[in-house]
């Protein structure tokens, strides 16, 4: 069981959260000019690093807010938790 630190509520059990995949994947600025390959890349392709990974979580059973977490995919260590709209902190 992960203990995930919500930026507003503090550390809570993983079962209180929904997972939202990779963080910082911007919606294309002008979708009408995006070709099929790039659109498929935006929709379906995500990084899969062995190591530190910035990902989205939503505190479903608490404040119901989306936020970002930097988690190590091997050790499951969490090094940062920060609100959406802010950039990835330089911690890992």
């Amino acid at each position: 069981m992960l203990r995930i630190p919500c930026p507003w509520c503090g550390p809570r059990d993983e079962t209180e959260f929904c997972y939202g995949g990779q963080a910082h994947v911007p919606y294309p600025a002008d979708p009408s000019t995006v070709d099929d390959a790039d659109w498929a890349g935006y929709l379906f392709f995500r990084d899969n690093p062995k190591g530190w990974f910035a990902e989205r979580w939503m505190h479903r059973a608490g404040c119901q807010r989306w936020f970002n977490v930097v988690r190590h995919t091997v050790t499951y260590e969490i090094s940062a938790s920060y609100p959406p709209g802010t950039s990835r902190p330089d911690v890992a």
Partner: protein
Amino acid sequence: MTADPGLLAVRRGPLTGALAAGSAQTVAVRDVPGRTLVELRVATNQDGSGAVESALGFDLPAAGHTSRDGQQLAVWLGPGWWLLDAPAATGPRTLEAPLVHRLRDSGGELSAVEVSAGFAVLELSGPRAPAVLAHGCSIDLHPRVFGRGRSARTMLAKAQVVFALTDDAPTYRIWVRSSFARYLVAWLLDAATEYLCEDPTRSSG
């Protein structure tokens, strides 16, 4: 919710008919009937919640906390999101509590929705109350961490709840969806069983 005696008589708390509800020496569960509950959302980009607070009559609490004014309680649920718990309004019968109209008329950018029928309100109190809660909840309830005036929206025994520490008995007020209320009461009474036999006023354990 207005105090129409006919309506209030029909409303049943989840403890109605329960065989045992504990004791003050160890841990006790009770219904808190007839509360008016309002869910309040205020635009988070708004500069303060001053208009709302003056309509309410007291300050809204910060993250993870409650604030109160006499019998009225405000509980922080999330950024820009609060649960207001007030006594049943008296006066002429209306569909929504006067508090809702007062908030809507405050001029703030907000949503105020009466949810009294959607929740059951319980109180769990006594020296063993934290131990009972800890059976089904992963929040650190040590008084140093979760003291009077703290609150949490979280899971308790797989039920979605909001609870707050309202006094040093200690007493936890618990808000739970009506459809989960009887389950949660059954779970609380079961979790409390092992502590009830510690009560010196009970002859056998």
